[in-house]
């Protein structure tokens, strides 16, 4: 879900996703390359993201950028809703437990 969310607004490359996730989660989510790439490949196989290789510029090698597809946006919406349901249910149970 988090990877899909990061790709929602603009295309990004692997290391950029890892860095942003680390930064935006205050270093809580330290995604390893070995974890991220398989996720990206699976998302690509499932047609939730698509990729493109950028042109190499000078000494900078070509990069593989990922972007969310329409199916990916739909899937993100569904997962977000599911997540909100789960987290609000968990919150409700926790609050009830605190009141007892």
């Amino acid at each position: 879900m988090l990877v899909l969310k990061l790709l929602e607004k603009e295309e990004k490359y692997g290391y950029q996703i890892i860095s942003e996730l680390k930064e935006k989660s205050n270093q809580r989510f330290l995604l390893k390359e070995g974890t991220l790439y398989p996720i990206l490949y699976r998302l690509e196989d499932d047609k939730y993201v698509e990729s493109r290789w950028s042109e190499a510029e000078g000494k900078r090698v070509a990069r593989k950028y990922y972007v969310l597809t329409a199916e990916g946006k739909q899937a993100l919406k569904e997962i977000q809703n599911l997540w909100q349901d789960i987290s609000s249910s968990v919150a409700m149970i926790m609050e009830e437990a605190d009141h007892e």
Partner: protein
Amino acid sequence: MNRKYINQIIRKLKCSKKKREEIRKQLISEMEDISQDEMQSLESPAELVEEFNGSFSEEEKKKYKKEKLMKIVGLILLLLVLAAGMIWWLLPKQIWLEDSKVFDANAVKMQAELVLEYFDQDDYESLKKISNDEMREFFNTHDLRSNKVLIAENWGRQETVGKVYMFEVKQMGKKSAVVQMNVQYENTNITYTISFNRDMELAGFWMK
């Protein structure tokens, strides 16, 4: 993440060649952004391989198996072709001596008659002079007179020389001239097979 690290991963990926190359390209491009400190904290190649292999789709796994099978089949075919080539190289290939570009048929026939003449006269010293090293060694260590007796006590005088067959034989890259001739003696018939190397030295001598 250096090239060695990447190669260790790529070698063990169970996916198609196309996917493997794409992953290689991607890992190389990511190298640019990773600092030395971050490189120290990277997962081991084995861990990365395990994660990658676990993520490939069924279709990708099928492609990998197909490519692996094709590689094995290709290797077997290559070995078969090599074995066939080797067998072809080992097998003697012959043409009529008249068609040879290396040997002169008349010269070979005359040399074969000379060998017979020396042999009939038990003149092994002269035979050695027109032989190659192997045949010289053979004449030094074998007593052909006693072999003659094994065929017949007394062969008698040479009466006629029958049909003469002459070939150029190529085997293992070497060309030789082979002469087969039937000779009738007073008391026995002998079929000789005599071979010469390119220098017209006696290289083989058989009789039956």
